């Protein structure tokens, strides 16, 4: 649990010619850890994930993955190193069916037999998908799409998964299921960096919580402590008034 797998040093990033969205952010992620980033809108939560995944190129600082700097690599190269990014809008190939989506996920695997095995393995984890193999991804429900996204990611056996808003647009019971999957994935040794608007739900599945505001990390603590911290509750979790 203690070896650091991802380390952000002094990362500054922004969009095109706009202002800096991230201002000198430092962050670490350990093996098998689930880390949840919370904070108000515009705090730069999603931007961190994009900066790590290479969709946005940091202006300054470095992103060390197993002590190798990722800054400057293209998104596909970073992905091939073993970092999977799951964006908010569930980047699925809408006009391909489930089976084709899974095959496409394994595009970088050259051993097709291995890929076939892994797909079968994933289908036992997500049995619903097995029934929908020939359905177009775009026509499935939000929950099913979410499962397909997870399935697609774990086929590649990544070391890190970056998940942006897994609960977005899902019914409460489906949200529960999604977080159960996230916890299970982490148990297999995958590190997960999570951004979640539903802060309480996100933190309760995580090991550590990071609070961000105005592009900076305000503080970082054990997820339980963040949940119980009076000040945090007041500022970011919407503390309930007296019982």
């Amino acid at each position, binding site marked *: 649990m203690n070896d650091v797998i991802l380390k952000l040093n002094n990362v500054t990033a922004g969009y095109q010619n706009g202002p800096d969205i991230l201002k000198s952010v430092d962050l670490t992620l350990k093996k098998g850890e689930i880390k949840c980033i919370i904070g108000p809108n515009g705090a730069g939560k999603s931007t961190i994930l994009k900066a790590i995944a290479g969709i946005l190129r940091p202006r300054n600082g470095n992103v060390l993955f197993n002590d190798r700097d990722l800054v400057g690599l*293209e998104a*596909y190269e970073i992905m091939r190193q073993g970092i999977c990014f799951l964006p908010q809008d569930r980047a699925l190939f809408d006009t391909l069916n489930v089976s084709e989506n899974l095959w496409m996920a394994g595009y970088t695997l050259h051993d097709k037999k291995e890929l076939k095995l892994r797909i079968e393995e994933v289908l036992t984890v997500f049995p619903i998908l097995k029934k929908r193999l020939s359905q*177009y991804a775009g026509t499935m429900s939000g929950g099913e799409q979410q499962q397909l996204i997870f399935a697609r990611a774990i086929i*590649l056996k990544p070391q890190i998964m970056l998940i942006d808003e897994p609960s977005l647009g899902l019914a409460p019971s489906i949200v529960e299921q999604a977080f159960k999957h996230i916890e299970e994935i982490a148990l297999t040794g995958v590190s997960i960096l999570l951004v979640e608007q539903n802060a309480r739900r996100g933190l309760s599945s995580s090991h550590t919580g990071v609070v961000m505001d105005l592009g900076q990390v305000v503080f970082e603590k054990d997820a339980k402590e963040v949940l119980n911290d009076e000040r945090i509750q007041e500022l970011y979790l919407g503390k309930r008034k007296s019982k």
Partner: protein
Amino acid sequence: MIYILQIIILGLCLGLVYALMATGLTLIFGVMRIVNLAHPIFILCGAYVAYWLFVLYGLDPILAIPIAAIVCGVLGAIVYKLVFEKDAGSQKYSEMTVLLTFGTAMILDGTLSFFFKNTQRVTSPSYATDAFFIGDIFLPTAQLYSGLVSLSLIVALALFLKFSTLGVAIRATSLSRVNAELVGINVKFVCLFSFILGCALAGCAGSLVSFVFSFFPAKHFEWIAVLMSLVVLGGMGSILGAVTAAILLSVLASLVGTFLAPSWSTMVFFLALFVILLIRPQGMFGKYLS
């Protein structure tokens, strides 16, 4: 009756050539979302390569296909590096990109015109004047050969896209660029490769065109509209669609050409374009769910 059948078969052969002319265009549009108005001029470049190889060295235009493909592919790579590389990186399509391709077409048009003037040319290999007779049906050899070669090239392309790794990457990129990148596809490389492949296909088509149609540099303006009508009718980015549209419209055009007047036949393509826009305005960007 035999007469009509004959016209249809001739239209079919020409349709296959048109289809090959359109596939490169569709491919580039699918992957890069660029409507390449310079595509027809690449076809012309291919035609000139085949023409001069035939005139100077007596090389059969069908055998000249690989050379024309390489020449056009290299030309495509140069044009891509100089003109489109910057734009290919941006996700957002802009009208300006179309104008860029138009400017490129004018540059190549001017260059070809400068060297070859406005002389009408046609390659005339020995079989250009031959014909097969099947019963009463008369089949000019040139049309038959060009149709068959086009068909086999299109099939080869389809197999490549269906089964090869790069082909899969091309299809994924044309479905969604972001997603392709997220599953680890080098999108920039796929764009470059598709552009070169598209231009090489234009070169192949050019070799065939060189003995089917007579050509001169300004001819490409006419082809722009003809090819666009095929691509729009077929649903932008769909190769199967473009091939179907090509065969359909070409048969129709040869019927019109026979019963009305030959010079009216291209009208079919242009009118088709308008009609599609009229009844299905989402035309080219309409979703083509399988």
